[in-house]
């Protein structure tokens, strides 16, 4: 293949609506970024803040891969507009380990092999952090139901359940 394509003439530009200044705390760090309203929190994290740990699996709230914690609650970042989270406290998978120590759920996911390809894993772990904080799901059935918004196509569900139960019982392995 050679050279550039036939030059395409650009018609006069319409204008895009301007970027807005947003400030929120991400993983304990104050972040300021200028974004257009159409940027989701997911794309803000991945494309503007270099936090690619949060995954885009469907972009429509149908898989859970983009789960993050906003003010401690698990939500889907793909259906969240970043401009609407000005001032929020956001925790992503990158913010769970503290001082180089993995979060107990991270350790448990490794020990119980709670993932294969790893792509749904940040969402699964963030969702599980939310689940444990909520304190409602206790039995295996309740945990399964409460994790059903996080699809794992590799089918690691039994191992994910084992990892969560281990942490709920106070052990990671």
């Amino acid at each position, binding site marked *: 293949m050679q050279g550039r394509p036939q030059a395409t003439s650009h018609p006069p530009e319409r204008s895009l609506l301007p970027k807005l200044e947003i400030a929120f705390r991400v993983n304990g760090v104050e972040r300021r970024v200028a974004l257009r*309203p159409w940027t989701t929190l997911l794309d803000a994290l991945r494309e503007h803040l270099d936090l690619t740990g949060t995954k885009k699996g469907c972009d429509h*709230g149908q898989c859970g891969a983009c789960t993050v914690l906003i003010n401690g609650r*698990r939500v*889907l970042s793909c259906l969240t507009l970043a401009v609407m989270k000005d001032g929020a406290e956001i925790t992503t998978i990158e913010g769970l380990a503290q001082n180089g120590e993995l979060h107990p759920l991270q350790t448990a996911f490794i020990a119980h092999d709670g993932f294969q390809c790893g792509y749904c894993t940040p969402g699964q772990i963030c*969702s599980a952090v939310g689940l444990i904080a909520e304190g409602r*799901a206790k039995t295996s059935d309740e945990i399964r139901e409460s994790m059903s*918004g996080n699809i794992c196509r590799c089918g690691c569900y039994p191992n994910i359940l084992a990892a969560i139960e281990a942490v709920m019982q106070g052990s990671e392995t």
Partner: protein
Amino acid sequence: MIDFDYVRASDVGDALSQITKHQAAKFIAGGTNLIDLMKENVEQPTRLIDITGLPLNEIQETQTGGLKIGALVPNSDLAYDQRITRRYPLLASAILAGASPQLRNMASTGGNLLQRTRCLYFYDTATPCNKRRPGSGCGAAEGFNRMNAILGWSESCIAVHPSDMCVALSALEAVVHVAGPKGERAIKSADFHRLPGDTPEIDTNLARDEIITAIELPSEDFSRNYSYLKIRDRLSYAFALVSVAAALKIEAGAIKSARLALGGVAHKPWRAPDAEQGLVGEQAGRKAFCEAADIILQGAVGFAHNRFKIELARRAIVRALEQAAAGTPQSQSVKVIV
């Protein structure tokens, strides 16, 4: 998704004045349905008015012994609020049957009412849909219609309302409080959602320049004999093929009052006052429940892929009423259907 402008509203009055000023604006709260549809280019508002700062997130007692739920109370907060779980467990159960914990954390009470009806063709801009593009035809009627309506549909649209929460609200005869340029008004939940008729593009009777402020639950709570039974293609995180909200008042084995609403079968949560009336005075039992199901479904007509929903609905109604009568409501996490 087209580009759009974003503004915040400070209070209800501000929100109303902003929506009046901009014809192609929409309110946004949880965004779980709106953003989804904007990414599909199905919804194309040019301005979003963020109402999450409005003071509409309280649950308050009413003077008549009911509860008034602020429109911005998140679905999960509502489902787990002790006043709801104790007094309106049917509502709590229905909410927990829907979506996922993440979505319920985001979605607002008012937004749940305003989610658009669901249909494969509504979502796919490469196909015709009278709801999305009035006059383009209904793709579903002769197409793939497994999820679609069996009741109350029209030639122009056979989509279904996907909410679980609204089915319970309908059974509980909740009242939707709205504010508009002409002041406030209350809409009975039965009148809130519409049937498609010739205008399937209009899902609800909320005017474009109105805003939901609260949902009021009457005092009659059916907290003893109720069940929300949802039948779907997988065991969680799926829209209903059929769902049933059943609520009974039983005295000495006889039904004193009954409420029945169906989800997943029509363009709106489907109430059948005739069937409810027919149950009153009957002994709580399979015979009466089957008759009630027949009354609800007597006008049901299905399509190539969803005719089974008529029989499925019949059975689900009977079972949900049995669960309600027995005081053994369906658990949303244990998948054995009692």
